């Protein structure tokens, strides 16, 4: 999607130029269109397939938000899942009506999701500030510790969250059908991607990359690392919290273990890395086929529990060692090959 395109005249050129501004190439748009109509076509219109698609879109949006931090400013946010869980729990507690818990605000999930996102964004602001002085591994470990602390809080504040027993928040729609949820999460995924793409296309993106590559050189060029790192964390965490809100009100069940655990961060990290660091779209592209592969393995090889996760990890390790550029790097390589062969032909 980052392919350089010749400025050709006509409506087609104008459309592609406009799309490029929000981060879409024609290929990307076609893929998006396919994903959007997929749940209407058999065999994908079965309910369990639509659930897989929802998981795909959910993971895709997470991968983009995660890559925004790890791929641009080179700080791996190891507390990503915990921040996502924070958004989910905030929204769930605000929507709570059951008298089992201490507070029953009963706010509509449609509003609560936004409050959860804002709170997660504020935590991200704090996290960005906490990791400011730290580099590389120290920042990752700091985010990890904050994540552990957040998860411990959610587990222990049983009056608010029922702790390890988990909550059963209200759902967004009064229907058992999955299709409406799919279009909600697809729209959310698009918003996350386009928003992050607009930011990275602006001067901010340049500043992020500069900080990620060499913080001292960036400072010497007049970039204030403090400001950009905090903004980056806040944005990424805000979207994480927003997506968490969707999770809460879609599945209707929340436990700290299934949502905030470090292994959840690792799943997103694996996707973002397989997709290609610093591309935003790589992880999104990988997420859909990946969820299908994994769910297929899980439902067909029930006598081998955990095989899908082993494959997940193996693929991540292999990509990290042998092809660190990931799918996005492969795409860029192919595009370059095609271009150079074309220019030779002319």
């Amino acid at each position, binding site marked *: 999607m980052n392919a350089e395109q010749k400025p050709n005249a006509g409506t087609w050129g104008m459309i592609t130029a406009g799309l490029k501004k929000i981060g879409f190439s024609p290929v990307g748009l076609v893929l998006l269109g396919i994903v959007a109509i997929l749940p209407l076509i058999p065999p994908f219109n079965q309910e369990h397939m639509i659930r897989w698609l929802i998981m795909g879109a959910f993971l895709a949006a997470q991968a983009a938000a995660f890559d925004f931090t790890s791929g641009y400013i*080179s700080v*791996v946010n190891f507390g990503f899942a915990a921040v996502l869980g924070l958004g989910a729990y905030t929204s769930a507690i605000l929507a709570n009506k059951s008298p089992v818990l201490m507070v029953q605000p009963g706010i509509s999930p449609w509003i609560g999701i936004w409050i959860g996102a804002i709170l997660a964004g504020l935590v991200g602001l704090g996290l960005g500030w*906490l990791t400011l*002085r*730290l*580099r*590389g*591994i*120290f920042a*990752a*470990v*700091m985010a*990890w*510790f*904050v994540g*552990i*602390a957040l998860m*411990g*809080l959610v*587990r*222990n504040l049983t009056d608010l969250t029922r702790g390890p027993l988990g909550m059963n928040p209200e759902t967004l729609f009064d229907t058992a059908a999955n299709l409406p949820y799919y279009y909600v999460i697809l729209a959310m995924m698009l918003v996350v991607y386009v928003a992050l793409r607009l930011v990275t296309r602006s001067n901010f993106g340049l500043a992020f990359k500069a900080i*990620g*590559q*060499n*913080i001292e050189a960036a400072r010497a060029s007049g970039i204030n690392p403090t400001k950009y790192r905090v903004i980056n964390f806040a944005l990424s965490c805000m979207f994480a919290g927003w997506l968490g809100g969707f999770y809460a009100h879609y599945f209707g069940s929340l436990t700290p273990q299934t949502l905030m655990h470090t*292994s959840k961060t*690792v799943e997103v*990290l*694996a996707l973002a*890395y397989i997709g290609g660091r610093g591309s935003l779209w790589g992880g999104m592209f990988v997420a859909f086929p990946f969820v299908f592969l994994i769910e297929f393995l899980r439902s067909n090889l029930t006598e*081998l*529990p*955990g*095989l899908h*996760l*082993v494959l*997940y*990890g*193996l693929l*991540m*390790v292999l990509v*990290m*060692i*042998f092809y*660190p550029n990931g799918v996005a790097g492969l795409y860029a390589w192919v595009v370059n090959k095609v271009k150079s062969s074309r220019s030779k032909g002319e």
Partner: protein
Amino acid sequence: MKEKTSRSIWEKITDNSAASVVIISTVVLALVTGLAAGPSQVINSIVTGGMWALLAVGLALVFGVMNVPHFAHGESFMVGAYVAYFVFSPIHQSLQESPNALLAAIAPFLAMLVAGVAGLILGVILERLLFYPLRVRTKSGWVMNAFLLTVGISFIMTNGTTLTLGPNFRGIPRYWDVEPLEFLGVRVAVDRVVAFFVAIASIVALWFFLRRTRTGRAIRAVSQDETGAQMMGINLNFIYPLTFALATALAAISGASLLFMFQAYPTVGLKPLYFAWYVVMMAGLGNVVGAIVGGFIVAVLQTATQQFVGIAWEDVIPTAVMIIVLLVVPSGIFGSEVKGVQEQ
């Protein structure tokens, strides 16, 4: 471990305000806990401290020599626990049929030994199979890449264990069927005492190996200056696998010696991993001596949290303390003088 910093640990502590503050407050905390809950909690802290120290030493060693922030250290612990279980329980079974006092006494040590050897082999395999190719290919950002690689290893090993052995808990009630020991009026299970002494003996053995043998000196040389060590004829392709194998073996031994507390199951390594990381982050990444002291500090903190706040908070409170430590002294209270720590 560096020669230029070979001042005694005592001098380092007295020179260093952060370290003195932390150590004094730890001693006060230990005394308060001891007064409030009796000497049993103090003994508890010491025993726990020994095992956190053993785990953290391996972590510090791997970081100091190879610059690998090891996230899969808990999985080495898990492997040790499984190996010890599979060695010990058949022996235990046969002892039920034909009692043999000598075998009953040495069987647990046999289990720990086999676990240690398994750790050595696993360490060599992991280093050759994964870290070696990564080292050959990585041009920049080694620390972060290595960290993420260990994250992947941890993911594969936990889920691979679930796949092959299932999610079941495999544990033993105790290693030795004998009466608990009396100490300061406190009854301490023999297993705990032995686990503590196994930890101390392993640390001392490692210490002698690093200080007194030629290979050990070579390891320390690599941790100080990789290029210089290479020019002196030290073969990095021998030192790296050896270091990684040693660290893995230490973790496996602690997993084996604690089988009576931590039953073997796929994610058993998580809690030991958390605490080992608290220790090394507090003591300073790669600081082996600091890790020993840090193990006891974290154990006191943990015991005090259990005593005064509640057992459910035992990872929240230490984490909060570690966050503060990282904020105030990011390189740890005993300092981290390892190359590449500040690498992006």
